[in-house]
């Protein structure tokens, strides 16, 4: 397939710097230890997503997946690197192209309570953007909103209500309808179902799958829930402390993970089992992003760590067809 990927991230980095304020600087002059604190939320990530794919982005707290998702969605400015939409750098686009690129990538948020304007009615929430951008005329907007709501499985008669009158699952659907209203091609789902009950999660997951085939959508599905990721994604990218550690097709990854962190993560996923299991978790805490370990970020917790891991940062390189891993000894793991 030589088609241009729909979204590409090249060397994307995001650093949050907390400069000491006036008081701290004064203290510094008087001899107190004052540092500029930098959080390397995302550290040189390359990611390619092809049209129609569902890519899962997985990791635990501090891994940077939400930050990466927001940079791809255009909500956050990268410190370094570029995001290409259909092959063109988004920051170079102007006018109508820029607007089209912005509307084509939409985000579905995690918190069904905070992601809707509490003071707006549902019809306003869903209809505001298409009306603002002239996608739909004032005369047609009501029918358009009805159509969007039905598409996500909500009764259009409810559109005059306010968000607080709906359940969490319904609010999630309203958020999806809002995103769909601007006719996007690419959806970034940032833990979109994490805050929902299990039975509602199933409904929303099914909705995502239906929409994918009905509207030919591409997804970047950010989640910490590997069970869900395994079910709906084509490819999985695993992050740890701001870096990608492994990228592989879903089926292959869950059969055999190459990177030690991926192996640990996969083995920790609780599954419904009929027997009690004994847990053998990996030791140690997730390090703080303010002070990541040198070399390979994972080396303090890795059961296979050697001297080289402490010193040299592993590069993400291909280890098999369509698979990449960032580990010095990935060849060894693959052949085990």
């Amino acid at each position, binding site marked *: 397939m030589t088609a241009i990927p729909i979204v590409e991230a090249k060397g994307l980095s995001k650093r949050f710097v907390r400069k000491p304020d006036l008081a701290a600087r004064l203290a510094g002059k008087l001899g107190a230890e004052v540092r500029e604190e930098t959080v390397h939320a995302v550290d040189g990530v390359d990611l390619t997503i092809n049209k129609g794919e569902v890519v899962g982005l997985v990791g635990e707290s501090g891994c940077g997946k939400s930050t990466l998702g927001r940079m791809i969605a255009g909500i956050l400015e990268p410190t370094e690197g570029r995001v290409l939409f259909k092959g063109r750098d988004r920051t170079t686009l102007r006018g109508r192209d820029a607007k089209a690129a912005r509307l084509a990538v939409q985000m579905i948020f995690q918190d069904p309570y905070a992601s809707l304007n509490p003071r707006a009615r549902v019809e306003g929430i869903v209809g505001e953007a298409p009306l603002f951008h002239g996608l739909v005329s004032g005369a047609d907007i009501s029918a358009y909103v009805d159509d969007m709501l039905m598409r996500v499985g909500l009764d259009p008669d409810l559109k005059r209500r306010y968000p607080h009158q709906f359940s969490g699952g319904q609010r999630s659907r309203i958020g999806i309808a809002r995103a769909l209203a601007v006719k996007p091609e690419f959806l970034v789902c940032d833990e979109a179902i994490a805050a929902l009950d299990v*039975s509602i999660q199933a409904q929303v997951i099914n909705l995502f799958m239906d929409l994918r085939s009905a509207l030919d959508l591409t997804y970047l599905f950010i989640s910490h829930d590997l069970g869900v990721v395994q079910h709906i994604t084509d490819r999985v990218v695993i992050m740890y402390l701001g870096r990608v550690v492994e990228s592989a097709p879903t089926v292959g990854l869950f059969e055999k993970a190459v990177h030690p962190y991926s192996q640990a*993560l996969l083995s920790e996923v609780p599954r419904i089992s009929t027997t009690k299991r004994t*847990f053998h978790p990996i030791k140690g805490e997730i390090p703080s992003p303010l002070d990541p370990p040198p070399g390979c970020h994972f080396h303090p917790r890795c059961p296979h760590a050697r001297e080289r891991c402490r010193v040299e940062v592993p590069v993400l390189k291909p280890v098999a067809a369509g698979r990449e891993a960032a580990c010095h000894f990935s060849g060894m793991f693959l052949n085990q």
Partner: protein
Amino acid sequence: MRSMGPPALEVSNLKTHFFTKAGIVKAVDGVSFAVAAGEILGLVGESGCGKSITGFSILGLVDEPGRIVAGSVRFKGEELTTASEERLRSLRGDRIAMIFQDPMMTLNPVLRVDTQMVEAVRAHRNINTAAAVHLARDALADVGIPSPEHRLKAYPHELSGGMRQRVAIATAFINKPDVIIADEPTTALDVTIQGQILAEAQALCARTGTAMIWITHDLAVVSSLADRIAVMYAGRIVETGRTADIVSAPLHPYTKGLIGSVPSHNKRGERLTQIPGMTPSLLNLAPGCAFRTRCSQATQMCLAEPELADVGADRAVRCFHPLLTEAGA
């Protein structure tokens, strides 16, 4: 296999209602289960089903406008619903302890860890501070906290989420209680940290013979940890039984639907079995079986409210049409 002796805690037909200006919310409306010494019981249900309120009711921590209106809670034979506040206070933290989802609810942000743990010990025992600190240090080591002497001197905000939860667990175990109620303790934690904490909790219970009620919405977590499971829906227990039995052959349609909703239990790429509709409002619960409107098996019979009935050794279900002939999900 742990010894299943007489129940450490026995709850019978517990009902806790909230009298709000909008009406009566029947948060807990018929909860019965028992947990023996050294046993882990998983109390499973989704949000709003009343599982947290059940935990609070056992400890007498339900505030106005709610109160226990019926049922009994027997701790080692002693009735708690009628016990005095004095008696309850002496039991809390000493014989029955609680772990919350948000460790900041247990931990006071302005006090150091050692101060708080020592307080928990000395509230129930007459020992000097040095001995209490020693106990605290041991408790932290028991939950797998490295260099516990240093952690003792830390403030809660200096610790990570997983670490704080471990401190909360250590504080719960420090007086070697007979029963621990854990309310979604690992829900907010990362998967790898959750794995560690589950391991520690499992080991601790085995060692100390403490009974544990693990409240969660995550069937997968509890199926790997618990000896027995009780499933809650709309304030009522709808099914209880041994973990292996419930997971392999659920009897109540809701339990079956819940198991089916979990993606790993479905074939990859296919639509998940979903339970249609939403949980009913506890304010205006329709008469009869609470699950009726969402159930594929519902008939006219279900307009009457089913009772929790025993259907075999250590198995009970609240349904007129339990899935008796199903071979499993």
